[in-house]
């Protein structure tokens, strides 16, 4: 008993001692846990609160509303319209199969379209929106609305989308928008920033150039989401800003006329204010409807456009490199005058052809023009005269003058990435590019705008404008910028030494249109209000063989691809010039019969519209 009781005491002592050790240990561990809690919940609270918000809040961007394009008079030429769309959220539909087949019937979807929708459905999560149709007609949209009682989970939605009310009229100028692809996202920061699935961005033309201004900013919806990304509740809606609306210098009426004139032809028309450089109209034909691209073009439509032999996808105004033909003659004449090669009394005898350097050069008139002075040579477009002065002038001096007047250089600078520079050859160029010496014969044909020389229609228009305004440099532009930016310093600097020379050339061009024997005499307008001066041009597409020359075929007898391009440059009204234009009709045959008559119609409208334009401009200044 004593033994056992002493053992009991020892046991009690031992267990109590050990309990004390464990108790102290517990105390410290407890303090450890509490300090950990304190560290996480009080000290690091901000950090974890942010992380928790990051977890639960997710942003959804909506496509921004794109800025519009207006013409000079405020007409919307690229705007937005409300597209009727049909959205389905699969998880909200009780019987998806039933609904989707019902929709197929109602919307008359083809099997191909239907399968596309089903494929899309499999790619998304069940709570994400499935766009069954992105642009429904009003009839179908109302039909769906009438059947909604039967279509659980189907949402008719009105969304904003691009619309080009004038269809093919502005396609090459403005371009079009379409769904952004990987390249678009990678190439432009602003697209990357605003990207949402289904975002439409400019693919060509001004839509592409001014993407940054037009795109606007996203609407942002903030949702609380769960761990699986399902939206639980909307927390915030942040309205985005609509893109900037750009006002163009274009006059829709003139643009429409240009389109009408070039209907079923391949070619280009551009009209420019000779003092401000404002482009009034710029059209390339054939064109296509840009609305086709907005929701993705169908394969059939695309093939139709792509395979058209008249190449609607090419913006001929900016991308078309054409031999200027006789339209270069004013520059050749001016260059000769400027360099003192000729004066107004200088004459050449034209016999229809001349032999130079073992080669025969033909004038377009077989019988020849006889003795011609500068004025007569310009009027009748005598080739022999220009062969002679080109020979005397030399290609280097000629190219110098041509470049001064804007040939061989991009007219709009960086505005259009597709714009071509054309080519104004000189001896140095040939050595560099082709590694051969310049031949004198090449100078001679350059004098009538054949050979290496290549110009774009917009360059010809600028050249004409600068001749018309008395030889002062202008910078063409399309977008009206309300803020008057720092103008280039050399704007309105004289391009020639003696203004008399410009006067001589202007007068010669006037003769070409308004005097008997002039190449475009038949297209003249006698009313001084509309009277204009113009120079025809006919650019050969291929070298004419001797046999063909003998045959002297009419235009319609030659196959389309081999017909000459018809060109015309003009400015008016002659008494007090304001506008210049260039017309080119691909394979149109002859400048005087095909291109010049278009100028007549154009000038009538241009001059009529001028007054309205001026009134608007004055009003704008008064408002400011």
């Amino acid at each position: 008993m004593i033994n056992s009781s002493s053992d009991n005491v020892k046991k009690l002592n031992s267990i109590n001692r050990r309990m004390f050790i464990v108790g102290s240990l517990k105390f410290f561990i407890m303090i450890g846990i509490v300090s950990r809690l304190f560290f996480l919940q009080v000290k690091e609270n901000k950090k974890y609160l942010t992380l928790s918000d990051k977890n639960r809040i997710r942003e959804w961007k909506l496509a921004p509303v794109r800025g519009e394009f207006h013409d000079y008079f405020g007409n919307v030429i690229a705007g937005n319209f409300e597209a009727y769309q049909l959205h389905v959220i699969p998880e909200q539909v009780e019987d998806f199969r039933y609904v989707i087949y019902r929709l197929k019937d109602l919307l008359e979807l083809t099997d191909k379209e239907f399968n596309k929708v089903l494929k899309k459905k499999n790619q998304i999560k069940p709570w994400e929106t499935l766009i069954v149709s992105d642009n429904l007609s009003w009839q179908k949209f109302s039909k769906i609305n009438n059947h909604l009682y039967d279509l659980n989970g189907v949402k008719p939605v009105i969304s904003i989308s691009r619309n080009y009310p004038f269809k093919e009229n502005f396609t090459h100028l403005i371009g079009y928008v379409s769904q952004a692809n990987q390249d678009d996202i990678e190439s432009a920061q602003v697209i990357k920033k605003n990207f949402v699935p289904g975002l439409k961005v400019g693919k060509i033309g001004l839509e592409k150039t001014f993407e940054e201004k037009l795109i606007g900013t996203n609407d942002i919806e903030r949702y609380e989401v769960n761990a699986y990304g399902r939206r639980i509740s909307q927390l915030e809606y942040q309205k985005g800003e609509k893109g900037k609306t750009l006002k163009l210098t274009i006059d829709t009426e003139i643009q429409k006329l240009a389109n009408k004139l070039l209907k079923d032809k391949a070619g280009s028309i551009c009209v420019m204010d000779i003092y401000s450089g404002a482009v009034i109209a710029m059209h390339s034909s054939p064109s296509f409807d840009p609305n086709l691209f907005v929701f993705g073009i169908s394969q059939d439509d695309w093939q139709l456009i792509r395979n058209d032999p008249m190449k609607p996808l090419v913006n001929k105004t900016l991308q078309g490199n054409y031999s200027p033909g006789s339209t270069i003659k004013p520059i050749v004449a001016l260059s000769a005058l400027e360099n003192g090669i000729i004066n107004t009394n200088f004459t050449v005898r034209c016999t229809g052809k001349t032999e130079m350097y073992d080669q025969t050069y033909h004038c377009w008139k077989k019988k020849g023009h006889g003795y011609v002075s500068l004025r007569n040579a310009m009027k009748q477009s005598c080739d022999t005269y220009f062969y002679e002065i080109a020979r005397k002038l030399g290609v280097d001096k000629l190219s110098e003058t041509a470049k001064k007047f804007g040939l061989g250089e991009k007219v709009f600078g960086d505005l259009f990435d597709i714009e071509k520079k054309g080519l104004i050859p000189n001896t140095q160029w040939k050595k560099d590019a082709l590694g051969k010496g310049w031949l004198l014969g090449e100078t001679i044909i350059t004098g009538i705008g054949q050979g290496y020389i290549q110009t774009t229609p917009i360059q010809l228009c600028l050249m004409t404008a600068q001749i018309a305004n008395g030889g002062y440099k202008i910078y063409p532009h399309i977008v009206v910028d309300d803020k008057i930016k720092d103008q280039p310093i050399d704007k309105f600097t004289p391009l020639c030494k003696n203004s008399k020379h410009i006067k001589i050339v202007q007068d010669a061009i006037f003769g070409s249109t308004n005097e008997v024997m002039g190449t475009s005499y038949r297209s003249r307008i006698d009313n001084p209000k509309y009277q204009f001066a113009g120079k025809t041009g006919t650019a050969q597409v291929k070298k004419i063989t001797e046999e063909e020359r003998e045959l002297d075929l009419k235009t319609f007898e030659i196959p389309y691809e081999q017909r000459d391009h018809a060109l015309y440059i003009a400015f008016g009204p002659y008494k007090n010039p304001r506008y210049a234009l260039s017309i080119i009709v691909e394979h149109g045959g002859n400048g005087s019969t095909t291109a010049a008559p278009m100028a007549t119609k154009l000038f009538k409208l241009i001059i009529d519209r001028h007054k309205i334009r001026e009134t608007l401009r004055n009003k704008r200044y008064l408002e400011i």
Partner: protein
Amino acid sequence: MYQHTRLSTNRLGFFQKFRNFDYILLLCILLLGFISLATMYSTDGGEVKFHTKSHFTKLVVFTLMMLILSFINIKYWFSIGYLAYVVVIGLLIWTYLFGITSSGSQRWINLYFINLQPSELMKIFIIVCLAKFFHRKKLENVNSLYTILTSLIIILLPMGLVIVQPDLGTAVLIAISGIVVLWFAGTNYKYFIYTFLGFIISLPFIIAFLQPYQKLRVLTFLNPDKDPLGAGYQIIQSKIAVGSGGIFGKGFLKGTQSYLEFLPEKHTDFIFTLFSEEFGFIGSALLLVIYAVIIYRIIAIGAGSRSYFAKIFCYSFGAAIFVYITINMSMVLGLLPIVGSPLPIMSYGGSSMLATMIGFGIVMSARVHNQQLIA
């Protein structure tokens, strides 16, 4: 030797027993039950759904059971000590042979009304068994080879049966429960020190023998940001939830992390995370205080018990409960690798609650019969 007015042989009347209850302990258990019910309600998204209902039922049934067990004389607990251990070992073997497999481990026995997890029961009955084993041991015999080997076998046998399930977490907890008894029984300090050092040295080898998922857990614990959406997900989300709770918490039913399903296992192992997110530092500290009071009361009851068995059981049970709480909280707070260990009473799970309540029942019985001597 302690001659007392009330002899151990005296039978206590029902009301006397009732008066002997530790009402502070009872109150704390009920309070904990209430808190766990509210938290469960929150995990169900603020609705009375399956987990809440089931938890409520278990809570009521097991609390009643605990009260009934309190009336059983502590000496009967002593007498069934070995038997209970053998029965649970039998159940573990049964589990090994015929158990239900869920998420890769075979831990449960289907009893038709409940899926019983015998390894949870073992956490209690190993204490009962070892307490009985050491009750009569003289202090000088405690460190004899025979005693130590026997007690090691008692610990290692259920451990092995649980490890093969596989359930390392519970096996470790069973081992700790057993070792705690050895500690209180007076096993020489040096054994603990040697074992501890041996464990540290062999740790790399143990890790090498771990299952790949267990290895991953250890590695993830060391660097949870290495794979934030995979293995590190649980620990990162848990820390975010706790940390974002702040001082006052996000408010009842407003824990975004759990409500939006970022929290894994929020009903069971991570229930404290949810509680902590909604009630903040103050709430968590209060919960810890409740647990501390419970443990304190258990120890106090042990200290007030006349029988060595009751004392050793209470101390060990108090220490074990403390270890369960510590391991669970350290795990969700990112202080320990993820091991499956429930938070007593708070976590959803019948077997765990059953075992804990049996433990409380024995403690309460020790309190009611604190003058009982066991020969």
